[in-house]
């Protein structure tokens, strides 16, 4: 039995800036495992331990996603091995294209019973790759998963719904997108970091995968810095809270905010 956990090696837009011409400057950003993916890895590790399953990390992206540092960062989080598709043509791949590549890789890996993903990527945050991936495989998908018990093939899944939670039973393979609070990921220790260097890293060539052609071709025709409201940036002296509060209330009344 095999569990796949997908992850993304990417940068946080918090560290990026948009130039006046609309191009995005990532030069100050440092890539890492996308924020919520360690949650998925933690959840998947617990399930794999409970079921005696092999846990495989899977990622696809442009140049850099397969560097030793990137592979080790993933492997130190409890994965048994990683499968990496590193191809520069995937750097700006759309959500559905990426999902189709991941689906082809899952088929290639074979015998996969369960795929766990993070809630959303830190850079794109579309929350759509897991659902298209499930569609490509013809598997059920459940998003906002908060807890999982049981074994692949007979899972009990708790997930958030608007205004509450719901418990589902799933038989057969599935794609589960973990909510951001589904597990608290532990920070890898020195032992795990050292062990990570010795774990297998499998590389798949994009051209060798059976990825169905997309009917849609998406072309980026422009990027721009969104116009933002100019903010006053006025600091109110708070040495006396009552005076500060009165000043704020007066300013808000004048601005029509109250």
């Amino acid at each position: 039995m095999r569990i796949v956990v997908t992850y993304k090696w990417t940068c946080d837009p918090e560290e990026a800036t948009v130039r006046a011409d609309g191009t995005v400057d990532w030069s100050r950003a440092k890539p890492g495992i996308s924020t919520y993916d360690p949650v998925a890895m933690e959840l998947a590790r617990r399930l794999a331990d409970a079921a005696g399953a092999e846990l495989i990390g899977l990622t696809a992206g442009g140049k850099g996603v397969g560097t030793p540092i990137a592979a080790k960062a993933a492997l130190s989080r409890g994965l048994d091995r990683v499968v990496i598709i590193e191809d520069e043509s995937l750097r700006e791949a759309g959500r559905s294209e990426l999902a189709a590549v991941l689906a082809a890789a899952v088929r290639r890996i074979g015998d996969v019973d369960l795929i766990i993903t993070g809630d959303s990527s830190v850079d794109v945050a579309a929350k759509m790759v897991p659902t298209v991936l499930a569609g490509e495989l013809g598997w059920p998908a459940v998003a906002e998963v908060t807890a999982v018990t049981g074994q692949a093939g007979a899972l009990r899944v708790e997930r958030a719904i608007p205004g509450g939670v719901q418990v589902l039973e799933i038989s057969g393979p599935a794609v589960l997108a973990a909510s951001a609070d589904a597990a608290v990921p532990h920070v890898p220790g020195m032992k795990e970091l050292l062990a990570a260097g010795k774990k297998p890293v499998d590389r798949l060539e994009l051209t060798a995968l059976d990825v169905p052609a997309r009917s849609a071709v998406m072309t980026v025709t422009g990027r721009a810095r969104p116009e933002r409201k100019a903010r006053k940036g006025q600091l109110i002296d708070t040495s006396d809270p009552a005076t500060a509060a009165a000043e704020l209330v007066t300013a808000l009344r004048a601005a029509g905010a109250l």
Partner: protein
Amino acid sequence: MSVNAWIIVGDQPTVGNLITVARSLGGPVGAVVAGPRSVAETVAASGVDRVVWCRAPGDVPAEACAPAVADVVAADPPRVVLSGRNPSERVLLGAAAARLGAAVVTGARSVAIDGGDVIVVNAVFGDIADETVAVSGPVALLLDGGPVPPTAGGSAPIEEVSAAPLPLKVIETRMHDFDEVDLNSAHRVIGVGRGLKAKEDLAMMEELAQALEAEVACSRPVAEGLNWMGKDRYIGSSGAHIAPQLYLTVGISGQLQHMVGVTGAETIVAINSDPNAAVFQQTDYGLVGDLYQLVPAIIAALK
């Protein structure tokens, strides 16, 4: 009749915005409903041209009908297929996008059809940039569903298909006791962050909210992780996007992922004990100090 746009509907008929966008593209609009029949009836009365309802056993979630929804959409392939952002709607849209080989676009600000292309302007990278894309071929759009659509004259006939569901079953549903809220309709909103020390202190925020006639919202960790509030109350790139007259942050550091949810606010006020907090770069009025002194002072000043 072949449709130009398909709207995918799950358990709730909250698709008013989707209908508006689909209509703006011209051509017939279809809706495929994976939820209860009553939802299909509401949608049929909202002015769409075609409604297909996927009948499934009562104990399966909407997601179980994903292949049936994809079949319906693929049998009459559209230029655009749209859904709201609820988890089950995302799953249904993903299945349709996979079947169509469609491009997926989220966070669209505008959509238009220009000859053979669908042109979408969408916010990317945590909303720091606006990107324009041209898509030849089908597009799957994830958008705010909007309110329940108003009834238009007449009603489209409801076609019924029997869905062979995926092996998913609902075992239990528990509603939590958080009050639900529509932050988009609030004129004033208070955003509570991790600067708040204890859940009990939310009472003070409620008092401030009363004095301001505001709703209380929060940053993501307060709703997910701390679980102090419902998930529908968190603001940010993956949460609510609001544009109230006043947004007052209390104990929020001002990370990009949060602040992109309030760029449309008329006036932003921040209270934070850290003078270097990023939030002060993005506000109209900043108060550096202890929220436990400042909030009661503001409540008193408002009275």
